[in-house]
């Protein structure tokens, strides 16, 4: 299926999901452009998986509507048309099958010819690094291997839309890097909606993002634009050892300073978010000197997605959702 340039592959309009009195997703408006690798961010419980389940018709919306490649979801029509590949955050398989048998079943469901199916299975297994384990029963595969298999079954038919819910959460660091590279490559042929709460992964592969919190869309847009719009300049300070009292007094003063928007203290490192980098640079040095704090390091850092997230959501992505 081809879409006009700039068209949206995934559209949500006031998409809502309620479980009794709990609103898991609250009037989500979202457009994911064709061909983008779209990071879907939020703390645990923000509504990311709920959105994925609505888009795959595994759950029914309480309100609003959504389309995949222009086809309304809800009754599973996009699934039946083979428009999407989906990886669950905790992929489960029939453990009596081998990895190759599972992919063979998936290929048959997509009505691939025998030759095409064999070729695509080999390609998918190679892409996710599971060629050697292809004939092993799934019940004997590790969690990371199952996650790779989940990606393989999602990409087997080269779907125009890929919905990946936490696709690298069970992988070791090396596997994570490999899989992120795969996802980045997939962006050339598919539209990828990639949910995670690991922001560095998103920075590596995504061109656009949306941030959800408490079931609501906080912001969405191109990553570079959001970094420019929301990320405040950050100064990183590393005081010398043995001056805890002076550092504590300086921190109190910094928290009260009008140019400081956020102070974070981790181990022996202070991260100071400021409103005006130029002005703050001068004032910060003066305050350090005034409190007699000796520094090993003082540097201005490039704002990260973590900073944007922290500013918009008020906590880190991996921190649990506060009760509403």
């Amino acid at each position, binding site marked *: 299926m081809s879409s006009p340039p700039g068209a949206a592959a995934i559209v949500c309009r006031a998409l809502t999901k309620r479980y009794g009195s709990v609103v898991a997703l609250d009037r989500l408006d979202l457009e994911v452009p064709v061909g983008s690798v779209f990071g879907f961010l939020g703390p645990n419980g923000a509504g990311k998986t709920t959105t994925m*389940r609505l888009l*795959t*018709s*595994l*759950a*029914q919306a309480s309100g609003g509507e959504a389309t995949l490649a222009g086809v309304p979801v809800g009754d*599973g029509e996009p*699934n*039946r*048309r*083979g428009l*999407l590949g*989906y990886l*669950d955050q*905790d*992929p*489960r*398989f*029939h453990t*009596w*099958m081998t990895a190759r*048998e599972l992919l063979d*079943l*998936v290929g*048959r*469901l*997509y*009505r691939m010819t025998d030759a095409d199916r064999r070729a695509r299975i080999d390609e998918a297994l190679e892409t996710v690094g599971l060629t050697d384990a292809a004939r092993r029963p799934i019940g004997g595969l590790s969690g990371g291997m199952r996650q790779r298999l989940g990606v393989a*079954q999602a990409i087997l038919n080269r779907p125009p839309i890929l919905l990946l819910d936490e696709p690298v959460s069970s992988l070791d660091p090396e596997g994570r890097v490999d899989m992120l590279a795969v996802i980045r490559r997939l962006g050339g042929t598919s539209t990828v909606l990639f949910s995670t709460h690991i922001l560095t992964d998103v920075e590596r592969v995504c061109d656009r993002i949306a941030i959800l919190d408490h079931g609501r869309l906080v912001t969405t847009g191109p990553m570079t634009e959001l970094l420019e719009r929301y990320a405040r300049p950050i100064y990183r300070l590393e005081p010398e050892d043995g001056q805890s009292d002076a550092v504590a007094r300086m921190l109190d003063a910094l928290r009260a300073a009008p140019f400081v928007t956020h102070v974070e203290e981790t181990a022996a490192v202070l991260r100071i978010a400021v409103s005006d980098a130029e002005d703050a640079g001068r004032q910060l040095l003066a305050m350090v000197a005034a409190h007699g704090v000796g520094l090993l390091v003082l540097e201005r850092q490039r704002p990260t997605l973590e900073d944007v997230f922290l500013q918009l959501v008020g906590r880190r992505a991996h921190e649990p959702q506060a009760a509403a």
Partner: protein
Amino acid sequence: MIGLGSMLRKELLEQWRTRRILVVAVVFSALGIGSPLLARYTPELVKVLAGDQFQIVLPPPTAADAVSQFLKNVGQAGVLSAILLAMGSVAVEKERGTAALLLTKPVSRGAFLLAKLLAIGTTLLVGVLLAAIGGFYYTAILFEALPPLGWAAMAGLLLLGLVAYASLTFLGSALTRSSLAAAAIGIGAMIVLAVVSALPAIGPFTPGGLNAPGAALAVGKEPGAVIGPLLVNLAGVSAIFAVAWLAFRRQEL
């Protein structure tokens, strides 16, 4: 019914890989062969066990006794097998999340369900077929050769009754996320049907009610009304499947 062929292939492969079809084949074969043996040698066993202290007079066993024994043994084990095969068929896939994996592919929910019911029916068919062949052969050796078509009709009616019990449990499996709850629904239905089968007007139309015309057909006798109960049971299985589909159609997974 998008994806029915591929799903049926997967379900039959699962019946084979998980040894279900093998267990059913062995159990049904043993019961099929054992029933005429039991009918033939029970009087002699009773006499031996009673010894010289009691004088027990038993009529000589006949082929009709072998048929009756066959229907009782294969029927009872068959109902239990039907419940065991159907109880987890949908519920386990929902509980484990494998249904979600498949239903995001080009598979309609109707095809997902029908493939499962057809696979259960196929497993029961294999079991009943092996039991019928064994039972027919040993009845011929130990008693007399019965009309093969009548015997086949009896086996067909028995199979339909078992599929009816399986479909009731299958409905429970589609409605719930628990195999045990599905089994409870199947066993509950079995008890209710056993009670209802005692009612003269309704009894012949229950799955168990198919045994009486089956037994008559097997020994070459006039079965009485059989078309009506046959159609009622076929319609029942279809209706139960329709209810399962309606319940499953928009179920959240």
